[in-house]
């Protein structure tokens, strides 16, 4: 019926409606601006492993109290953190994948890379330890045992620093576990914590950084079986995003943060972050500085 209706006579109303709408929306947005209000702050692209360990909650308030600069942490996998920083969506990058960090500098996205701290990776697994690797300090041997016995192993599978470290280990063994037919090897495609939840849930082995493991509260009966291998060393580096590439970055505050975290105060704050009397990260900025 409606299709036959005579042509409408008055159409002046619509633009008026649109105008009113715009007015109300701009009003709404102007009310919202206090939400975004911020003084001096920088955005740090970092990794889930560092964030989940609780390190930032410990050290960043100290930095802010000292300098008034707020550090806003976006925690994603190392791969994504580097891509976000390359897009200019951050002022500082704190990740743990040396090769990728150096590539980031080489591509002109970062100013200079500094060592900050390290921790180590550990292999955790179910209490019955079906691969019989408990107590080993040979990561390659342990992983080979897992692969030979086809015991369930959870991989991050998200191109994070931890995932890259894990892939390097498999490569030196000459095993490519992510091939389709390897049913014991599962990629979660998610962060360290989610991967640990899954590993605990299905009684699988996995490679995790010690910091996340110590802070993780859903361990149930899972245990550390392999640690202490130099191959499991996990170095974190910090890089300021290059202001020549992205002029909008808060380069001054970023430099200030890098100086602080490498200073005695910052390094001590890192060492002070402990769970059950154990430091989650070992500061090594000064040593690295000497090496350089």
């Amino acid at each position, binding site marked *: 019926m409606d*299709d036959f209706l005579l042509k409408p006579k*008055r159409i002046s109303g619509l633009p008026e409606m649109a105008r009113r709408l715009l007015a109300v929306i701009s009003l709404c*947005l102007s009310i*919202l601006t206090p939400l975004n209000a911020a003084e001096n702050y920088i*955005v740090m692209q970092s990794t889930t492993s560092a964030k989940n360990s609780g390190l930032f909650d410990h050290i960043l308030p100290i930095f802010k109290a000292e300098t008034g600069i707020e550090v806003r942490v*976006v*925690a994603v996998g190392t791969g994504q953190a580097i891509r976000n920083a390359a897009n200019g*969506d951050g002022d500082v990058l704190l990740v743990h994948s040396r090769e990728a960090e150096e590539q980031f500098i080489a591509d002109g996205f970062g100013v200079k890379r500094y060592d900050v701290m390290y921790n180590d990776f550990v292999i955790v697994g179910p209490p019955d330890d079906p691969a019989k690797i408990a107590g080993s300090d040979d990561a390659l041997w342990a992983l080979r045992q897992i692969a030979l016995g086809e015991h369930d192993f959870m991989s991050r599978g998200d191109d994070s620093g931890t995932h890259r470290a894990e892939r390097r280990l498999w490569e030196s063994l000459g095993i490519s576990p992510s091939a389709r037919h390897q049913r014991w090897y599962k990629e979660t495609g998610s962060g360290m914590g989610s991967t640990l939840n899954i590993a605990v849930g299905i009684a699988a082995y996995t490679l995790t950084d010690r910091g996340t493991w110590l802070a993780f509260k859903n361990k149930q009966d899972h245990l550390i079986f392999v640690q202490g291998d130099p191959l499991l060393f996990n170095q974190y580096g910090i890089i300021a995003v290059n202001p020549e590439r992205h002029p909008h970055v808060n380069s001054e505050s970023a430099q200030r943060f890098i100086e602080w975290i490498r200073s005695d105060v910052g390094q001590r704050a890192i060492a002070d972050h402990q769970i059950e009397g154990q430091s989650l990260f070992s500061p090594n900025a000064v040593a690295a500085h000497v090496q350089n």
Partner: protein
Amino acid sequence: MNNDGVLLQAARLIAEWDPALFEIVLLSLQVTMSAVVISCLLGLPLGAAVGAFRFHGRGAVILILNVLMGLPPVVVGLLVYLVLSASGPLGVLELLYTPTAMIIAQIVLVTPIIAALSRQVIEDLYLEYAEQFASFGVSRYTRVRALLWDARYTLPTVVLAGVGRAVAEVGAVMIVGGNINHVTRVMTTAIALETSRGDLELALALGIILLALALVVNVFVMALRGTRVRGAYA
């Protein structure tokens, strides 16, 4: 895991009224409500216009709205990230990792829901009114306004659907907000974070509080509607 423990922890969290929790709840409400209000301002007139007018390509518009209702939040988050990224077209606004970015992402998610559902409501109503309105000589603008007003007892359900989507969504706000403590951490991203920390009880307790919030919003809307004799007008 002990379920009593979870309920107890949720109750304790609320009872102690931890300022950090308060901050997260408040930001959740601010972001969600702002997004829903703006989505209504956009979606209701759009839905009413599509419901009340016949034009070329109308079928396609309805189809698009219905498809957009099912937009995955992660995809929306990614799109909004690409637009707001410093390297993106709107990078100069420096909105990424702010609550405004989260509101924008949720507007993209919620507006199609409001528009598509209100389109159906308004269209049904307009079928009833069409001849009478034509006889009165009602202008286009008045038609949309009158239909929106006369659907006022049905549309709250539409708005609640939008609120539900916004308040429960985590994928989009995680990407564009970054889950930054004290800045962009909301209920859902806090739950995701606690889950990844393995603190499943705290995560669940936060989930219960989120549920309670949704309950409060729903009761509020129902009470608002109940103050008028609904049956009388429907």
